[in-house]
């Protein structure tokens, strides 16, 4: 199987590559991993990972600078049904738009938009809510039988760092939530494509389990 990690100038490519390589190696999976911005390579891949750190508009701009990339992704994922994982801003890009800095459109694969996390009120021990939502948090799993959550329980924690959260009424597409002053969709997806607000590549053993599950997942066609 061939997996591509899309290189569009986002900062944490190396971390994503390291974590996927480690997972493939330690589990003896038959995967080749390529970090690339080459459209031909992406169209030949079996699986696509879109990482992303930084701001939504910057990531969108980075993608636009590679001629034809966004159209290709939509074609591969939506029309051809190729397996896809968006991480953090890579996940945010899957929906209609984000209000970060200025309203910027995403791919529109799912309904919804991103708004700044609320900071009003105090947390359970009386502290102010800080932005970014930074650190380890657990999942409230909505789709208990989703293959990517096999052997992952609600006490396990994943590393988050983001300031904007998804607002959506399309409740069917939310696989898990996370709570930080508000309910934040932390895993979303449909059919062959998934997005995670957290960073599986930085989430220790739980992250490795998630990556393993995602790599092993065979979406129903």
């Amino acid at each position: 199987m061939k997996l591509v990690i899309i290189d569009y100038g986002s900062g944490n490519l190396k971390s994503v590559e390291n974590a996927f390589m480690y997972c493939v190696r330690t589990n003896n999976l038959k995967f080749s991993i390529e970090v690339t911005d080459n459209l031909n390579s992406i169209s030949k891949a079996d699986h696509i990972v879109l990482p992303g750190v930084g701001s939504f508009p910057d990531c969108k701009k980075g993608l636009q600078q590679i001629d034809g990339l966004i159209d290709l992704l939509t074609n591969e994922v939506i029309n051809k049904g190729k397996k896809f994982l968006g991480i953090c801003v890579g996940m945010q890009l899957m929906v209609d738009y984000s209000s970060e800095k200025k309203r910027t459109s995403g791919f529109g694969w799912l309904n919804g938009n991103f708004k700044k996390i609320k900071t009003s009120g105090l947390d359970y021990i009386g502290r102010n809510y800080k932005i970014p939502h930074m650190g380890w948090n657990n999942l409230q799993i909505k789709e208990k039988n989703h293959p990517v959550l096999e052997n992952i329980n609600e006490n396990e924690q994943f590393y988050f760092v983001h300031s904007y959260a998804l607002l959506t009424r399309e409740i069917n597409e939310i696989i898990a939530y996370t709570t930080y002053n508000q309910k934040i969709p932390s895993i979303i997806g449909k059919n062959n494509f998934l997005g995670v607000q957290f960073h599986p590549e930085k989430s220790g053993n739980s992250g490795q389990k998630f990556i393993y599950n995602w790599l092993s997942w065979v979406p129903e066609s």
Partner: protein
Amino acid sequence: MLSTRVIPCLDVHNGRTVKGINFINLKDAGDPVEQAKKYSCLGADEICFLDISATNEKRKAMFNVISKTAELCFVPLTAGGGVNSLDDFRKLLNSGADKVSINSAAVYNPTLIRESSEKFGNQCVVLAIDAIENKIMPSGYEVTTHGGRKKTNIDVLRWAIKGVKNGAGEILLTSMNSDGTKKGYNLKLTKLISENVNVPVIASGGAGSPKDMVEVILKAGASAVLAASIFHYGVHSIFSVKKEMFKNGIKVRNHED
């Protein structure tokens, strides 16, 4: 619910971990990659590397330390020490660091915070502030640089607010008066900053026991706690700190074996 982070810090000199008090009488304390691996297995929520090499030439070893650690440890890595330019930022991030902390350079090159956060995102810009008590300052604390040796005549609270406005995504706040004393964090300073900025504040300097960590979280609102020596010398483990935090109603990750 978000866990409160426990962050061990490794002092790195010429690519090796060192132990010493106030950077004097440095003793070789092994391979930072091995130690980071150990800390990450023991439940460290992030790992912080502080390069205390004196020259740029010797700092190159740090890139190697970061890249080797990033191949094996899948927790966030922060690198700092001697970061002066966007190029330093880029090299550390490309090596596998997730965040970069800047200290003296932010004072002497005030545009660096803005430039680095615009370029790499504010999630990876950590403003490290070394504060000392000074009654003349409006907040009672003054910013120092060069490991506390140089005063700047800058007020800590104003500096923190300005840093956040310029794009810092987190503040690593060290009380130079408490640092090395093992008598506990500076609660007044930590409370002052954490109540007045909207980004996470990491408390640093003075941790002597797990109870000190609990105190700075519950009484001063720290978002995370950082410590070096109490973990290095094996007096307290990350696990024992988390157990104490959990016992006091603070949510943590991996407080059980």
